[in-house]
């Protein structure tokens, strides 16, 4: 193809040249050896060239190793096709390869027309990325919905009037609903008269609320209602609700509480059994101690014995250790405290029935039980109390001769 200026220019050619000069096109021709015989078009600018500059160069050498080289070789071999070519930059082109044949029909060079589509391609890529993201998110939402519908929860949303916009979750079947079935209904109407109505009203007035309610027989829900607001304004756009099935937890809590109450009752029974205080004679109380004595028990023994002393107005308190096999330091310590407290109240204490092993322990530990009156058996203790009581009574009543003042 040669630019021949002699004959008057065809007006159509002028249009072509104008288009080539202004549109992002590259039009080129190669001879059968792959040398440029034509390179025109505005599109050359982005390839760092100018119209005509490449004429005479070897195209196959210049574009060696790129997709363009392969395409040009195919076209020179006689193939006609359209291809999308990307060259370093990156620049994207839609290219038409047109084979040229000589009179005998053998391949004799090629024409190429390339339209730069970099901007469109990039836009398309971005769009594809966004689509992929959307698909990924929709997958995520699907998975979440599936999880929500399998789990004992319900997620729902209502508009400021209370109309339900979304309703999903595995609790819904227990309410006799299917996922999404209540969409379009009004939550206030649905729950009118139930305990949930008040919290729905609260959330519609803009307050975040969390509730624990028995929504239906055998169904307890822990709910959180979150008002959603439009941007910076205070205007309520919707209320998002999340409810969790708490039936099982509520029931086990109730069971646990009941069990704890039983245990507490039993413990108090055991405590009462552990510290039986017997009034063995007028003004004489006896506390038989049986089994292991720990500090908790001694402190209870102390309290109940002292209270019994005050209640019965006793003069003597006998602590019987016949049923105690072992004592430790703290037990002995507590016993001493018990007798000291009794003395502070004005009561005489007697310790009886100390077993040989216990006596040995007390001595080995170096405990001072010296201040405490001890007898061998309960019988001896009671005998001592009675004679002491008689002596006291005699000393007091027989010689009670108040002198007149003065």
């Amino acid at each position, binding site marked *: 193809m040669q630019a021949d200026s002699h004959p008057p220019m065809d007006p159509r050619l002028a249009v072509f040249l104008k288009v080539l000069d202004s549109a992002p096109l590259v039009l080129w021709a190669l001879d059968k050896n792959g040398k440029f015989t034509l390179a025109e078009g505005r599109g050359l600018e982005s390839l760092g060239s100018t119209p005509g500059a490449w004429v005479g160069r070897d195209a196959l050498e210049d574009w060696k190793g790129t997709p363009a080289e392969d395409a040009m070789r195919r076209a020179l071999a006689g193939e006609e096709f359209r291809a999308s070519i990307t060259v370093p930059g990156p620049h994207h082109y839609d290219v038409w390869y047109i084979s040229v044949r000589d009179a005998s029909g053998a391949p004799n060079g090629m024409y190429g027309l390339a339209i730069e589509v970099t901007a469109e391609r990039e836009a398309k890529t971005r769009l594809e990325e966004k689509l992929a993201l959307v698909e990924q998110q929709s997958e995520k939402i699907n998975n979440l919905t599936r999880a929500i519908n399998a789990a004992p929860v319900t997620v729902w949303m209502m508009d400021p009037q209370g109309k339900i916009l979304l309703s999903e979750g595995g609790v819904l079947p227990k309410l006799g609903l299917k996922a999404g079935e209540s969409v379009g209904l009004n939550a206030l109407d649905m729950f009118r008269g139930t305990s949930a109505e008040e919290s729905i009203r609260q959330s519609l007035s803009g307050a975040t609320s969390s509730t624990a309610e028995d929504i239906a027989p055998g169904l307890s829900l822990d709910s959180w209602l979150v008002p959603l607001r439009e941007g910076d304004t205070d205007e309520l756009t919707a209320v998002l609700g999340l409810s969790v099935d708490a039936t099982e937890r509520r029931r086990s809590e109730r069971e646990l509480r009941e069990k704890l109450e039983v245990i507490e009752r039993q413990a108090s029974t055991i405590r009462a059994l552990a510290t039986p205080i017997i009034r063995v004679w007028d003004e004489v109380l006896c506390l038989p101690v049986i089994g292991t004595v720990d500090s908790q028990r001694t402190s209870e023994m102390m309290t109940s014995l002292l209270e019994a002393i005050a209640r019965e*107005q006793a003069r003597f308190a006998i602590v019987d250790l016949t049923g105690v096999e072992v004592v430790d330091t703290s037990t002995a310590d507590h016993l001493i405290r018990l007798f000291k*407290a009794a*003395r*502070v*109240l004005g009561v005489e204490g007697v310790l009886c029935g100390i077993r040989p092993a216990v006596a040995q322990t007390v001595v080995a530990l170096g405990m001072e039980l010296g201040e405490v009156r001890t007898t061998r058996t309960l019988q001896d203790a009671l005998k001592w109390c009675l004679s002491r009581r008689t002596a006291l009574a005699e*000393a*007091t009543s027989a010689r009670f001769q108040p002198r007149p*003042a003065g």
Partner: protein
Amino acid sequence: MIAVEYATPIIRLYDNFIVALQGGMSDASVDRLRADVTERIGNQTARGLILDVSALAYMDSFVTRAVRDLAVIARLMGVTTVVCGLSPEIAITLIDMGLELPGVMTALNMERALEALFRAREQDANELRSSDAI
């Protein structure tokens, strides 16, 4: 406004003084009680002193110390002291705090406190008699 302090009455019964400590006494009125009782013991002949603490809901270390001080002062002046009316709670607290009122006689109630005083006096008399005999 002037805080009104009521003096704790000190009752004389035969030759014993009976003082019932009131609940909610301020430190100042405890001090004043101590001074009053000491003065009465000094002025009038008496042989026994009963401190009734049954009206106290609790005994802090200040009141405990005042009671013990009174007992020691009274003994120095030849007067036997009995503290009565301690509640089980107060008794436990005193033991836990290590305040055991050592050297002070204790009784469950006023009646027994009087009995204890008479017995103590009788014992003194017996000792005197036996020393006379020697």
